[in-house]
């Protein structure tokens, strides 16, 4: 048997993978290192983005955070993903924006014409918003983003 947990004033807390001696473990063999910043999950929100254009669809967090938090967004599809594990959903974006409420975009082509839909996601300290934008304002063959998303807020700040 090997030692897997090291708790000391000098090293802090280290936890190694099973069968790996913690006092000599390489970085890839550590499950946890208190010397590194972590991403604890502080809240998980399920939200159905409505199908519309040019409108910020806003989801409020349960708290106003000191800074914009790290946020992961998963797309669950058009069906209600309640009961579906996050791991089986499509990872959509990871946001960690600072200073101003800025966009991060996901673009997808969905028309034979070559027009495409851009999804803007804006992150604030207390909310996140989703907005579908047309690449061609006169285009009628595009589809706005809609469906169920899972938003995971991580307690990580710069």
């Amino acid at each position, binding site marked *: 048997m090997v030692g897997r947990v090291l708790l000391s004033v000098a090293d802090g807390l280290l936890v190694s993978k099973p069968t790996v001696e913690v006092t000599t473990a390489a970085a890839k063999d550590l*499950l*946890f*290192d208190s010397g590194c910043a972590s991403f604890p999950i502080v809240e998980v929100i399920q939200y159905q983005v409505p199908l519309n254009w040019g409108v910020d669809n806003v989801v409020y967090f349960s708290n106003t955070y000191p800074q914009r938090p790290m946020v992961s967004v998963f797309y669950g599809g058009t069906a209600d993903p309640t009961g579906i594990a996050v791991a089986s959903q499509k990872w959509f974006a990871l946001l960690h924006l600072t200073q101003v409420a800025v966009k991060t975009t996901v673009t997808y082509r969905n028309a034979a014409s070559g027009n495409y839909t*851009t999804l803007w996601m804006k992150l604030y300290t207390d909310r996140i918003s989703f907005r579908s934008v047309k690449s061609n304002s006169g285009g009628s063959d595009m589809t706005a983003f809609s469906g169920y998303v899972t938003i995971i807020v991580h307690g990580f700040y710069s």
Partner: protein
Amino acid sequence: MVNRVCLGLKGTSYGLWISKSGVDVLTASEANMLFSSTRKTIQVIQSTSVVYAAEAVANSRSKTITHTDYGFRPFVILEFRGFTQAEYESGPDSTNWVYTLSARTQTSFTFDRPGITINSATQWKGFTLYYRLLSVGYGSI
């Protein structure tokens, strides 16, 4: 009050477990753990930044960041700071993203600055790029 931290022997295994508030760590399922030494935690194992000075033309667009070979291919978070909201909205399609290194032995990363369109002209603004290596990636689990 319930036990929430177990360090040592639990069942037949040694390790460290921390349960959610109100849940007894000695009987908690994995879903009720805040931390379990049976699972990997996402952490930042290295963080650095590089400053891009403003340029009138597309000179000196590339900068290279080097990092340690940790024995696996870590995911990387790139984060930009220094643009205004209007500049973001006319500039790069994404303001940050997760990047995957092409190989475990890739220990440097070169980034070309994006051009920002302001008043119909492309400009190369000054900004700071933050580069963070995560503890998860190919070969880490």
